[in-house]
């Protein structure tokens, strides 16, 4: 079943056409890797899906139903959770408060924004979540995010997405700036998330990661989707040449022939 279907999305920033007729389908329980060079339009595409800004044209379908995503709240309510390239946590808040930011459990809900946080529930739910996603080091739910390593922060962001995303999780370069172990942690999360039935859209510049976790590859170039392949039917060189637009395997053959 199609979890998410994008049809002919277009988006311009002034004269820059960041998205030209981008179409993409994400199925249930599938990891799709979105690849492309710097400035190809990957972040723009996922920002449109996650409600950071509206598209100029095109349609978005969630589970076959046409939807309109006007705000980040709309996307969240549709079950689309995004971990943006620029960090998505507030460093001065505790882990627990970050995990539930924007969806705080409260008492006396009728008090609106003045309602008191249900601190016990917040802490317990946070601890349970940290345990469930199996973050290796034992983290205190009350610790400030500013005291965590980059990898730990990424794991927190991913656990938050897992907690709330009924359907789709989008990760924009989640392994950037991470160490080896932390990177493995993130990739393991991606697999776990998929096994738990979520669909994942993964943006990365690391093709090796793609072959480890993705089911399908979608390549963007200059705002357009130029190729779609299943991982099983392709190889590293082919994908690389698709990204750069140059025929790498031909180049390699040439080089070998010399």
């Amino acid at each position, binding site marked *: 079943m199609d979890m998410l279907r994008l049809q002919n999305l277009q988006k311009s920033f002034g004269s820059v056409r960041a998205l030209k007729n981008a179409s993409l389908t994400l199925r249930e329980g599938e990891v799709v890797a979105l690849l492309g060079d710097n400035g190809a339009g990957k972040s723009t595409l996922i920002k449109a899906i996650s409600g950071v800004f509206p598209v100029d044209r095109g349609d978005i379908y969630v589970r076959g139903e046409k939807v309109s995503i006007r705000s980040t709240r709309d996307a969240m309510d549709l079950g689309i959770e995004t971990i943006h390239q620029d960090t998505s946590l*507030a*460093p001065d808040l505790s882990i627990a408060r970050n995990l539930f*930011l924007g969806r705080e459990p*409260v008492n006396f809900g009728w008090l609106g924004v003045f309602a008191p946080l249900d601190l016990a529930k917040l802490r317990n739910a946070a601890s349970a979540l940290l345990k469930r996603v199996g973050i290796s080091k034992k983290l205190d739910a009350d610790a400030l995010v500013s005291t965590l390593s980059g990898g730990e922060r990424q794991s927190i962001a991913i656990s938050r997405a897992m907690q709330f995303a009924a359907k789709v999780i989008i990760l924009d370069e989640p392994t950037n700036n991470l160490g080896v172990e932390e990177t493995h942690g993130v990739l393991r999360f991606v697999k776990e998330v998929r096994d738990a039935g979520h669909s994942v859209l993964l943006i990365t510049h690391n093709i090796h990661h793609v072959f480890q976790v993705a089911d399908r590859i979608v390549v963007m170039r200059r705002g357009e989707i130029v190729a779609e392949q299943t991982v099983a039917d392709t190889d590293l060189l082919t994908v690389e040449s698709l990204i750069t637009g140059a025929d790498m395997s031909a180049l390699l053959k040439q080089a070998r022939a010399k």
Partner: protein
Amino acid sequence: MRSPQFSSLIILVVLLVVFAVADANFLSPLNISNMMAFLPELGIIALGMTLLLTAGEFDLSVGAVFGLAPVVVMLLVQNAGVDIGVALLAGLVLCIAIGAINGLIVTKIGISSFLVTLSMLLVVRGAALYITQGFPLKSWDQPGFFVTLLAGSFNVGSFRFYTSLWWFIGLSLFAIYVLRYAKLGNWISAIGSNHNAAVARGVPADAVKIWLFIATSVLAGLAGMISAFRISAASPVAGTGYELEVIAMVVVGGTALTGGRGTILGTIVGALMLRAIRNGIVLIGVPGLAYNIFVGLIILAMLILHALLQKNAASG
């Protein structure tokens, strides 16, 4: 232990002891009563400023609003014969409008709050000077409900306190609750800590900021009214320089100027500290014209201390 408001508290206690030893009059009922009369007026503004700074913005127009609100209210009463209650309501609406304009320009047009509220300071102060032609007005001096509410006084033993102290205490408790325990406080800290992250989680950052600008303006107007009622005069230049003094109170208390980390308790300590410094320095005989030197130096020392503690906490 290493929390900024705690270190501020220790410095406050040290200062109080030093002043008390240096001059026995410092802790006299009269002097304490005096300090407590001034404290709420800047303190109330500092509460709003703390929330605003925590959300990553600040407001330089508070001193001017402090001056304009009572001037407008008293002009309406004296020159237009408007009922005092209605005039106060008009003053409230004016403060809401000023705050809303600040907030809308900062969030929707995206100009830094420094520039927007600096311009607003000039506009508001200019308006106060223009409509009064620069002359102070007599304030409302007939006793009545509003005067009792804002500037009534009562004696406890040989101490004389004003009702404004209750306002300060009540508003402080509310601000502590909001920042620490309410959903709104979580949003305020998140917005100041990482604006994009908060927005990505569906936090209505612009609306929160606009309301904080409004709250700060209204608190500045309230403080202005309290002051005007207490001294029975409304001057167009009242509150000049208060914006910086209030920001000093807030940051001395440990709230980060860069947003994300705010403490109301720290601000209360900061407000007490600046009040005690201003008062104590005069008592111990520092010449009046020199005391800003001391105030400035003490503030600097406090900030350096916070910075060192912050560094320490980060590395250890």
